[in-house]
């Protein structure tokens, strides 16, 4: 029995190594990208600075982790129907869609909803293959992990790593426009998730979390403006509309002394610098409804 297993494993291993090494050694010479992927940006842009900003944006899991940590029950009504991406035809739509589904996959992972994950994995695979980053998304392994409740941690780690590897690959291969769309998709969907949760279950904490997103939007928008093309222009227009409602949010800062404590044997650094978010409930409602409108427009 063990011998059989061993042989099977070795065969699988060999196959996987062959598959993996088709993209090894950073040799991208075999992959031809469509011209639209190489949309030239503003001549004065600093690509390293731009990539640093893009790569800094949050993980597709973070907002979901915040929501789950607040003991908000899971709800599938917040999620994108994964089948919607089947109608996407351009790389612009596909990269943005990959971001949306990655954020939803993060949400499903955090809540251990393995039974719903497969549909998302199928569509993420399809999008990633179309964008020629499919080599970083091991569908079979993720599917196997998703079919066992014992492996939920591994599934989450693998999912996030796949996302990170796809994003990094795009940035390293002069396809930063697609990387920017990927993180935009994650950000918009994450904002949508927390605003919908806040709509159903208000808390001061959620209000603060939403208000803080003004900082992120103000970093994201200048990046998106660097890229040319009608679809980018429309995206920027949509996000400008969102920026208009975020402009009502006031963020002030308070400086404090940093504290360090040892809790359960671990060092904890407490940053007592504080950002203070000020916005009215009406302004919050405006952000919630504008986010909903724009997110729904973008996923069509």
């Amino acid at each position: 029995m063990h011998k059989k297993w061993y042989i099977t494993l070795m065969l699988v291993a060999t196959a996987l190594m062959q598959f993996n090494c088709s993209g090894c050694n950073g040799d991208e010479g075999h992959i031809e990208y469509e011209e639209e992927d190489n949309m030239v940006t503003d001549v004065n842009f600093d690509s390293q600075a731009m990539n640093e900003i893009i790569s800094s944006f949050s993980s597709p899991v973070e907002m979901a982790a915040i929501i789950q940590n607040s003991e908000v029950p899971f709800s599938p009504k917040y999620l994108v129907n994964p089948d919607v991406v089947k109608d996407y035809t351009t790389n612009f739509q596909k990269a943005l869609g990959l971001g949306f589904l990655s954020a939803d996959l993060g949400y499903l992972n955090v809540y251990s909803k393995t039974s719903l994950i497969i549909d998302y994995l199928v569509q993420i695979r399809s999008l990633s293959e179309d964008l020629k980053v499919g080599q970083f998304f091991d569908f079979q392994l993720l599917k196997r992990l998703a079919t066992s409740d014992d492996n939920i941690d591994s599934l989450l780690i693998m999912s996030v790593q796949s996302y990170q590897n796809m994003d990094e690959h795009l940035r390293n291969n002069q396809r930063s426009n697609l990387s920017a769309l990927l993180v935009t998709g994650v950000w918009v969907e994450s904002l949508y998730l927390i605003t919908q949760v806040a709509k159903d279950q208000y808390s001061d904490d959620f209000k603060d979390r939403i208000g803080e997103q003004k900082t992120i939007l103000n970093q994201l928008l200048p990046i998106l403006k660097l890229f040319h093309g009608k679809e980018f222009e429309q995206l920027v227009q949509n996000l400008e509309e969102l920026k208009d409602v975020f402009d009502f949010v006031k963020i002030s800062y308070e400086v404090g002394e940093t504290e360090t404590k040892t809790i359960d044997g671990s060092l904890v650094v407490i940053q007592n610098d504080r950002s203070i978010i000020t916005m009215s409930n009406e302004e919050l409602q405006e952000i919630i409804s504008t986010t909903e409108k724009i997110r729904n427009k973008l996923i069509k």
Partner: protein
Amino acid sequence: MRRLFIILVFAILCFGQATTADAQCKQQLVYQCATQTEKAIFLREFNTKLKRESASDETGMKFTVVLNKGTQYRFSLCAPDGYQDQVVLTLYDSEHPENSKPWGSTYDKVAKTDRKSFDFQCGKTAMYYVSIRFKPGMGDKKGCAVGILSFVGKSK
């Protein structure tokens, strides 16, 4: 048996992927590092190449990361055998520079001790930097290290 299967497939996959990034750590180490953080949710990895050509060289890599107010994060550092005590992960920003007043570090310069991780309770949403480098005077050959960022919970 199922667990063995997953570990092996993972290791093999990772072997393949590791070759795409010269001298970065193999994914197996990333996976081990990510899973050793109990009661925290994995957010992202910082896989770093380390190489020192001369004593004055700045080794390793710097990453940017947006951290959100009200969240307690954990920064963990892992390195292959033989490198654990040579590498340091530092969290800093423009007002708290890496070498003078960082927010946190896996190396206590005063006590000269290493820690595998530290937590950071973030008070303001902003862009921060994470560096992973050889300690001064250490690292005479190529190496790698992995930093892991995890979500611990809301700040108390």
